[in-house]
Protein backbone atom coordinates (compact mmCIF):
# COMPACT_ATOMS: atom_id res chain seq x y z
CA UNK A 1 0.00 0.00 0.00
CA UNK A 2 3.01 2.25 0.26
CA UNK A 3 3.19 2.01 -3.54
CA UNK A 4 0.58 4.47 -4.91
CA UNK A 5 0.63 2.74 -8.32
CA UNK A 6 -0.82 -0.42 -6.76
CA UNK A 7 -3.57 1.51 -5.00
CA UNK A 8 -4.51 3.38 -8.16
CA UNK A 9 -4.47 0.14 -10.16
CA UNK A 10 -6.94 -1.35 -7.68
CA UNK A 11 -9.19 1.64 -8.28
CA UNK A 12 -8.71 1.43 -12.06
CA UNK A 13 -11.40 -1.13 -12.95
CA UNK A 14 -11.33 -0.16 -16.63
CA UNK A 15 -7.57 -0.11 -17.02
CA UNK A 16 -4.61 -1.91 -15.47
CA UNK A 17 -6.71 -3.46 -12.69
CA UNK A 18 -4.78 -5.10 -9.84
CA UNK A 19 -7.05 -6.68 -7.20
CA UNK A 20 -4.27 -6.96 -4.57
CA UNK A 21 -5.70 -4.23 -2.33
CA UNK A 22 -8.91 -6.18 -1.79
CA UNK A 23 -6.79 -8.91 -0.21
CA UNK A 24 -5.00 -6.39 2.03
CA UNK A 25 -8.41 -5.22 3.21
CA UNK A 26 -9.72 -8.77 3.51
CA UNK A 27 -6.64 -9.97 5.39
CA UNK A 28 -6.82 -7.02 7.77
CA UNK A 29 -10.51 -7.48 8.55
CA UNK A 30 -10.12 -11.27 8.90
CA UNK A 31 -7.71 -10.62 11.77
CA UNK A 32 -9.27 -7.47 13.23
CA UNK A 33 -12.89 -8.63 13.44
CA UNK A 34 -12.29 -11.72 15.64
CA UNK A 35 -9.39 -9.94 17.38
CA UNK A 36 -11.50 -6.95 18.45
CA UNK A 37 -14.28 -9.26 19.59
CA UNK A 38 -11.85 -11.25 21.69
CA UNK A 39 -9.93 -8.37 23.33
CA UNK A 40 -12.96 -6.18 24.07
CA UNK A 41 -14.46 -9.03 26.11
CA UNK A 42 -11.96 -8.06 28.78
CA UNK A 43 -13.16 -5.36 31.17
CA UNK A 44 -10.39 -2.95 30.12
CA UNK A 45 -7.26 -2.72 27.96
CA UNK A 46 -3.89 -3.71 29.47
CA UNK A 47 -2.51 -0.16 29.80
CA UNK A 48 -5.66 1.95 29.96
CA UNK A 49 -8.81 2.20 32.06
CA UNK A 50 -11.36 2.09 29.26
CA UNK A 51 -11.82 1.09 25.62
CA UNK A 52 -12.15 4.25 23.54
CA UNK A 53 -14.80 3.03 21.12
CA UNK A 54 -16.89 5.33 18.90
CA UNK A 55 -20.51 5.34 20.00
CA UNK A 56 -22.26 7.43 17.33
CA UNK A 57 -24.59 5.65 14.94
CA UNK A 58 -26.08 8.56 12.96
CA UNK A 59 -25.17 9.41 9.37
CA UNK A 60 -24.51 13.14 9.14
CA UNK A 61 -23.47 15.31 6.22
CA UNK A 62 -20.01 15.74 7.76
CA UNK A 63 -19.32 11.99 7.58
CA UNK A 64 -20.44 11.63 3.96
CA UNK A 65 -18.83 14.86 2.72
CA UNK A 66 -15.56 14.11 4.47
CA UNK A 67 -15.41 10.56 3.15
CA UNK A 68 -16.22 11.77 -0.38
CA UNK A 69 -13.42 14.39 -0.26
CA UNK A 70 -11.01 11.83 1.22
CA UNK A 71 -11.80 9.36 -1.58
CA UNK A 72 -11.08 11.90 -4.32
CA UNK A 73 -7.69 12.65 -2.76
CA UNK A 74 -6.93 8.94 -2.29
CA UNK A 75 -7.72 8.26 -5.94
CA UNK A 76 -5.74 11.20 -7.28
CA UNK A 77 -2.66 10.57 -5.14
CA UNK A 78 -2.81 6.82 -4.47
CA UNK A 79 -1.86 7.51 -0.86
CA UNK A 80 -3.93 7.36 2.31
CA UNK A 81 -2.48 8.53 5.64
CA UNK A 82 -0.90 5.28 6.93
CA UNK A 83 0.94 4.20 3.77
CA UNK A 84 1.99 7.81 3.14
CA UNK A 85 3.76 7.84 6.51
CA UNK A 86 5.30 4.43 5.76
CA UNK A 87 6.54 5.71 2.38
CA UNK A 88 7.85 8.97 3.85
CA UNK A 89 11.39 7.72 4.67
CA UNK A 90 11.80 6.55 1.04
CA UNK A 91 11.66 10.30 0.38
CA UNK A 92 10.17 10.39 -3.11
CA UNK A 93 9.52 14.04 -3.94
CA UNK A 94 5.81 13.39 -4.47
CA UNK A 95 5.51 11.67 -1.07
CA UNK A 96 7.15 14.58 0.74
CA UNK A 97 4.75 17.04 -0.90
CA UNK A 98 1.77 14.78 -0.23
CA UNK A 99 2.54 14.35 3.48
CA UNK A 100 3.16 18.08 3.95
CA UNK A 101 -0.15 19.09 2.37
CA UNK A 102 -1.99 16.20 4.08
CA UNK A 103 -0.89 17.41 7.53
CA UNK A 104 -1.87 20.95 6.54
CA UNK A 105 -5.28 19.70 5.40
CA UNK A 106 -5.78 17.87 8.71
CA UNK A 107 -4.91 20.94 10.77
CA UNK A 108 -7.18 23.10 8.57
CA UNK A 109 -10.05 20.64 9.03
CA UNK A 110 -9.54 20.58 12.80
CA UNK A 111 -9.50 24.38 12.85
CA UNK A 112 -12.72 24.66 10.83
CA UNK A 113 -14.48 22.11 13.06
CA UNK A 114 -13.28 23.85 16.22
CA UNK A 115 -14.53 27.23 14.95
CA UNK A 116 -17.89 25.70 14.08
CA UNK A 117 -18.22 23.97 17.44
CA UNK A 118 -17.33 27.11 19.38
CA UNK A 119 -20.14 29.00 17.66
CA UNK A 120 -22.89 26.64 18.83
Amino acid at each position, binding site marked *: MANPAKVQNFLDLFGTWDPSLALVMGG*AIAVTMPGFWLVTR*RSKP*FFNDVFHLPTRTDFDARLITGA*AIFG*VGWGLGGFCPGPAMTAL*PLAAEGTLIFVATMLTGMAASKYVLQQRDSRV
Partner: protein
Amino acid sequence: METEFTPLLSLLGGGLIGTSAVLLMATHGRIAGISGILSRMLPPSTKDQSLPQSLIFIIGLLLAAPIWIVFNGQAPLQTVSNNLPLLALAGVLVGFGSVLSNGCTSGHGVCGISRLSGRSIVATLTFMSTSFIAVLLLRHVFGS
Protein backbone atom coordinates in the same frame (compact mmCIF):
# COMPACT_ATOMS: atom_id res chain seq x y z
CA MET B 1 1.39 1.42 -15.51
CA GLU B 2 0.79 -2.20 -14.58
CA THR B 3 1.58 -3.73 -11.21
CA GLU B 4 1.84 -7.43 -10.47
CA PHE B 5 -1.08 -9.10 -8.64
CA THR B 6 0.38 -10.21 -5.29
CA PRO B 7 -2.33 -12.21 -3.51
CA LEU B 8 -0.23 -13.88 -0.81
CA LEU B 9 1.90 -10.87 0.06
CA SER B 10 -1.17 -8.63 0.15
CA LEU B 11 -3.08 -11.06 2.36
CA LEU B 12 -0.08 -11.31 4.68
CA GLY B 13 0.37 -7.52 4.77
CA GLY B 14 -3.32 -7.10 5.52
CA GLY B 15 -3.02 -9.64 8.32
CA LEU B 16 -0.17 -7.63 9.84
CA ILE B 17 -2.23 -4.43 9.66
CA GLY B 18 -5.04 -6.30 11.42
CA THR B 19 -2.62 -7.60 14.06
CA SER B 20 -1.47 -4.04 14.72
CA ALA B 21 -5.07 -2.87 15.12
CA VAL B 22 -5.87 -5.72 17.55
CA LEU B 23 -2.71 -5.05 19.58
CA LEU B 24 -3.48 -1.34 19.94
CA MET B 25 -7.03 -2.18 21.03
CA ALA B 26 -5.82 -4.82 23.52
CA THR B 27 -3.15 -2.61 25.06
CA HIS B 28 -4.55 0.93 24.90
CA GLY B 29 -8.17 0.46 23.91
CA ARG B 30 -7.73 2.69 20.88
CA ILE B 31 -8.88 2.44 17.28
CA ALA B 32 -5.81 2.21 15.03
CA GLY B 33 -6.98 4.98 12.73
CA ILE B 34 -3.96 6.71 11.26
CA SER B 35 -5.75 9.95 10.36
CA GLY B 36 -7.00 10.21 13.94
CA ILE B 37 -3.62 9.39 15.46
CA LEU B 38 -1.87 11.92 13.19
CA SER B 39 -4.40 14.70 13.55
CA ARG B 40 -4.46 14.46 17.36
CA MET B 41 -0.80 15.50 17.27
CA LEU B 42 -1.49 18.57 15.12
CA PRO B 43 -2.66 22.07 16.07
CA PRO B 44 -5.13 23.34 17.11
CA SER B 45 -4.65 21.32 20.28
CA THR B 46 -7.46 19.50 22.01
CA LYS B 47 -7.58 17.91 25.42
CA ASP B 48 -6.26 14.46 24.72
CA GLN B 49 -3.87 12.43 26.81
CA SER B 50 -2.89 9.93 24.14
CA LEU B 51 -0.14 12.09 22.62
CA PRO B 52 2.86 9.92 23.63
CA GLN B 53 1.23 6.75 22.26
CA SER B 54 0.34 8.57 19.05
CA LEU B 55 3.91 9.66 18.61
CA ILE B 56 5.29 6.17 19.21
CA PHE B 57 2.77 4.63 16.80
CA ILE B 58 3.81 7.10 14.08
CA ILE B 59 7.51 6.41 14.74
CA GLY B 60 6.69 2.73 14.17
CA LEU B 61 5.16 3.56 10.78
CA LEU B 62 8.24 5.57 9.88
CA LEU B 63 10.58 2.72 10.88
CA ALA B 64 8.89 0.09 8.67
CA ALA B 65 10.61 1.04 5.40
CA PRO B 66 14.12 1.41 6.91
CA ILE B 67 13.73 -2.02 8.59
CA TRP B 68 12.62 -3.47 5.24
CA ILE B 69 15.75 -2.05 3.63
CA VAL B 70 17.99 -3.53 6.34
CA PHE B 71 16.56 -7.03 5.76
CA ASN B 72 16.15 -6.90 1.98
CA GLY B 73 19.12 -4.76 1.04
CA GLN B 74 16.94 -2.61 -1.23
CA ALA B 75 14.00 -0.24 -1.00
CA PRO B 76 10.46 -1.64 -1.52
CA LEU B 77 9.17 -1.23 -5.08
CA GLN B 78 7.37 2.07 -5.42
CA THR B 79 6.11 4.30 -8.20
CA VAL B 80 5.16 7.79 -7.05
CA SER B 81 3.80 10.25 -9.59
CA ASN B 82 6.06 13.21 -10.33
CA ASN B 83 3.03 15.41 -10.88
CA LEU B 84 3.70 17.47 -7.76
CA PRO B 85 0.72 19.86 -7.99
CA LEU B 86 -1.57 16.82 -8.26
CA LEU B 87 -0.01 15.19 -5.19
CA ALA B 88 -0.23 18.47 -3.29
CA LEU B 89 -3.95 18.67 -4.07
CA ALA B 90 -4.43 14.97 -3.21
CA GLY B 91 -2.72 15.51 0.15
CA VAL B 92 -4.96 18.41 1.12
CA LEU B 93 -8.09 16.43 0.18
CA VAL B 94 -6.96 13.31 2.06
CA GLY B 95 -6.05 15.31 5.16
CA PHE B 96 -9.11 17.56 5.19
CA GLY B 97 -11.57 14.80 4.28
CA SER B 98 -10.30 12.21 6.74
CA VAL B 99 -10.48 14.59 9.71
CA LEU B 100 -13.94 15.78 8.61
CA SER B 101 -15.26 12.21 8.45
CA ASN B 102 -13.31 11.04 11.54
CA GLY B 103 -11.40 8.32 9.72
CA CYS B 104 -9.59 6.96 6.72
CA THR B 105 -8.91 3.50 5.27
CA SER B 106 -7.60 2.25 8.63
CA GLY B 107 -10.08 3.80 11.06
CA HIS B 108 -13.23 3.33 8.95
CA GLY B 109 -12.07 0.72 6.42
CA VAL B 110 -10.35 -1.78 8.70
CA CYS B 111 -11.34 -1.04 12.32
CA GLY B 112 -14.83 0.33 11.67
CA ILE B 113 -15.92 -2.44 9.33
CA SER B 114 -14.52 -5.00 11.79
CA ARG B 115 -16.77 -3.51 14.48
CA LEU B 116 -19.67 -3.57 11.97
CA SER B 117 -20.06 0.19 12.52
CA GLY B 118 -22.77 1.56 10.25
CA ARG B 119 -21.02 4.93 10.03
CA SER B 120 -17.76 3.30 8.97
CA ILE B 121 -19.44 1.08 6.39
CA VAL B 122 -21.16 4.12 4.87
CA ALA B 123 -17.91 6.13 4.96
CA THR B 124 -15.96 3.29 3.31
CA LEU B 125 -18.55 2.83 0.55
CA THR B 126 -18.49 6.61 -0.01
CA PHE B 127 -14.71 6.97 -0.28
CA MET B 128 -14.40 3.81 -2.39
CA SER B 129 -16.96 5.27 -4.82
CA THR B 130 -15.35 8.70 -5.11
CA SER B 131 -11.86 7.20 -5.42
CA PHE B 132 -13.00 4.97 -8.32
CA ILE B 133 -14.46 8.04 -9.99
CA ALA B 134 -11.30 10.09 -9.34
CA VAL B 135 -9.08 7.43 -10.96
CA LEU B 136 -11.53 7.01 -13.84
CA LEU B 137 -11.41 10.75 -14.56
CA LEU B 138 -7.66 11.00 -13.99
CA ARG B 139 -6.68 8.07 -16.23
CA HIS B 140 -9.43 7.65 -18.78
CA VAL B 141 -11.13 11.00 -19.22
CA PHE B 142 -8.30 13.47 -18.82
CA GLY B 143 -5.58 10.87 -19.45
CA SER B 144 -2.19 11.01 -17.77
